[in-house]
């Protein structure tokens, strides 16, 4: 096992754990992006360029766009609900 691979795997372990332990979903999305990058890095280090390419398009664009849109929808609905409750 080379040093690069070792570093890549430790990064994956740390970033993956961070995704679980960050409680705020918005910040969690950011950490998820970092996690995607560390997985990409690991796939490169393990000689899997096709997989790395897939992971980077899905992990850094494909999924985060969906998560951010969902979060925005949820937050704006919450905000509107609070507005309504205040005005009543």
């Amino acid at each position, binding site marked *: *096992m080379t040093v690069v691979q070792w570093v890549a795997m430790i990064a994956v372990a740390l970033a993956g754990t961070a995704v679980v332990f960050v409680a705020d979903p918005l910040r969690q999305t950011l950490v998820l992006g970092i996690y995607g990058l560390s997985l990409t890095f690991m796939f490169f280090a393990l000689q899997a360029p096709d997989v790395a390419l*897939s992971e980077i398009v899905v992990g850094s*664009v494909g999924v985060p*766009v969906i998560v951010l*849109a*969902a979060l925005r929808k949820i937050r704006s609905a919450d905000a*509107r609900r609070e507005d*309504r409750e205040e005005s009543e």
Partner: protein
Amino acid sequence: MTRRARLMLFAFAGPGLAAVLVIGFAGLPSFGDYHGVYGHVVTGIELAERHATDIVTALNFDIRAFDTLGEEIILFASVTGVALLLRPLREEEEDEDSEDGGQEAPHVFGGASDALRTISAPLAAFLVALGAYVVVHGTITPGGGFQGGVVLAAGPLAVFVGGRYLASRRLAPDWAVEAMDAAGAAGYVLMGIGGLVFASIFLKNFLPLGSPGHLLSGGFMPLNSIAVGLEVTGAFLLVWTEFLDQALVMREKGGS
């Protein structure tokens, strides 16, 4: 169950399952100590019999092409499912001018600066070109229909980031995106049926192989790659617009 009971249960179950996994993994060969034969066999076959140089893409579209069919249909089914789940209901309306409520204007991405707006058009063009390149070079260099398809779909997304959501919707209207998604899925299946018709076996190559390293090498694989590229482009565009519609356009009428 109370939260406490739940955590207690997991406090026993989690380490238990981890131990089971570790005991099982202990039987795996040490990392890097690979001695399988499948890998060698397929590499030799794909190069010699199919004239493809990216073995992963070649496996994907040839020996394990049926898995890829399943994978494309999973994508197709999920996109259909997302469209079904996020379909507008009677009590929801698409409100075109929602300056009310003090929210950010919905069609302009909050952080779109002038600079971003200026580069978004060339960026989109670049992404489309790059995506198309990755799709058609699937059998030669890393990447293929899936990776290229997502990059292609990111083109219109870049127009949106540049601040023009409605423009990006006009660039890729729903019916066209849906048709693209369906055509890609059907196209892949039809390549399989082509094998059935011309070589009497489903998903069997029925086109000339070409020479290794050239664009049209690998028999029907480049066409498979293009079909997947179409499907993935359509699928991701559709999912993104469904979610962005929810986030930016859709309002619930009245309360709920």
